[in-house]
């Protein structure tokens, strides 16, 4: 293996890993607060990508505005999703299995809604970065890859600071450990959960745009969140630094497997990794127990 290819593979891996991390963070955040696996997260990512696509191809807006638009769009969709499909279950203190089933229903519904209205065509984003490459250590890597990685890093760091420092962030952490107690501290739970979904949806929007640019936009593109679940498990479900590290590790390892072994082996390897973690280290690399998560 010559160093140029190695570095290129590493950076591609980090970029994919960054996108996995963006997806995993939103998924993890909802999991840690409401304790259920939000399978509709992938559909929100997909819708975020469509929002971005519409802004970019119909209105020919610049990349920054497209990104902001899909963050807002996906964030609102996630909040709406919670209000319509989860909030009444939550208020009646339904077991988390019910929420999970509702989430699956939402995922299938939203996908089919897109099939029925927009259609099953695959769309490509207009070229934002062209084939722009930058040269790092003698090998050329695409600007998109570097940008996606750096953006993911900054966004997740920002979220981390938000959770650690702000009043709302501290309320989220309190809610993670005990929702009822959190409301007895004067926290409006409906508002808090709306904020959690807004954040998760915002991150889904970013992931959707990057995925759409890197690959294509189509109704089932959200299922790539399976990889985000793996990333979240590797890092420790509910841990934000864990989701970041898990995403990056998975992205890098996957890319190395597909470029040095075989691309057919990539997903076999990823899911074996998931099973291995669940068997030997179910709390992941950074997870503690289920009590305190974010």
């Amino acid at each position, binding site marked *: 293996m010559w160093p140029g290819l190695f570095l290129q593979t590493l950076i591609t891996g980090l970029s994919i890993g960054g996108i996995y991390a963006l997806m995993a963070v939103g998924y993890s955040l909802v999991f840690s607060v409401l304790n259920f696996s939000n399978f509709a997260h992938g559909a929100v990512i997909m819708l975020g990508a469509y929002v971005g696509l519409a802004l970019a191809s119909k209105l020919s807006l610049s990349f920054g505005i497209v990104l902001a638009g899909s963050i807002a769009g996906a964030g609102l969709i996630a909040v709406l999703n919670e209000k319509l499909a989860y909030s009444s279950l939550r208020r009646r203190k339904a077991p988390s299995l019910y929420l999970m089933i509702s989430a699956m229903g939402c995922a299938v519904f939203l996908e089919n809604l897109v099939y029925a209205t927009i259609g099953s065509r695959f769309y490509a984003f207009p070229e934002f970065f062209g084939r722009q490459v930058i040269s790092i250590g003698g090998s050329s890597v695409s600007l998109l890859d570097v940008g996606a990685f750096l953006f993911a890093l900054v966004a997740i760091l920002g979220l981390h600071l938000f959770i650690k420092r702000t*009043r709302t962030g501290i309320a989220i952490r309190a809610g993670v450990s005990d929702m009822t107690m959190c*409301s007895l501290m004067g926290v409006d739970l409906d508002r808090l959960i709306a904020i959690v979904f807004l954040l998760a949806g915002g991150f889904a929007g970013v992931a959707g745009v990057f995925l759409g640019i890197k690959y294509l936009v189509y109704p089932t593109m959200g299922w790539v969140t399976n990889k985000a679940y793996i990333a979240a498990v590797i890092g420790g479900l509910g841990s934000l630094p864990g989701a970041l590290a898990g995403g990056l590790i998975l992205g890098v390892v996957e890319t190395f497997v597909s470029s040095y072994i075989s691309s057919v082996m990539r997903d076999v390897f990823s899911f074996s990794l998931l099973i291995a973690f669940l068997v030997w280290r179910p709390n992941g690399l950074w997870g503690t127990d289920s009590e305190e998560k974010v």
Partner: protein
Amino acid sequence: MKTPGKALLSVKGLTKDFGGIRAVDSFSFDVHEGSITGIIGPNGAGKTTVFNLVTGIYRPTAGSIFFEGEEMAGLRPDKIVRKGIARTFQNIRLFNRRTCLDNVLTPLLQRERCSFTGALFGTPGARRLERELHGRAIELLSALGLGKYASWQANTLPYGLQRKLEIARALATEPKLLLLDEPAAGMNPEETRALADLVAEVRWKFNVTMLLIEHHMDLVMKICTPIVVMNFGALLAAGTPDEVRENPEVVAAYLGKGKKTNECTSG
């Protein structure tokens, strides 16, 4: 109570059904401002359910809960706590993996309006507020003898101190009425006596009215007046410790009664 203040909390005809079970049955009582009112009653009498109704965790099936003359029944817990009712739990519910300081800071922060970006980037204003709240948290912890445990993780504290931390955290919401659910549960007689002193001290220091559920009779008799007795979800008796102690129905509820006496007792 020798000099009854006005009723701070006034519960009227409170009823709660769980399916076919009537846990609280048109229960009425008052808590006067400045009092330490005790609720006693056999296990399953519905005491904790009353707490859950008053704090908004459950919605009443029927009845009213007036706090400072304002209807609380049906309000959300966060609204009620902001009106000035705080509580502790029978089974301690702390934010276990956070420090004692963080536990008390959580409610303190929720009362403040702090700027989002300020907190995120640590502006001077945000830092000042943080220092101020930090100071208040330490004061509260110290008032309950937890000053030196500020940096301890909550679940590593000994049991008795966890109870105190729960009281400190409830006080951080700046309540007018504090509900304590079996504060002496699991304590030995010596610890129970110390708790009695603490409760009395907290009442004066924080100028807070208290309503407490307790099974340690010596504690209740020593610090509570009046005492409200519940049985099968309904009011059985209310009065001073002596009145309650001598009430034959109360004695019967606690010690059981023969069938004959039961028939003789007028409803």
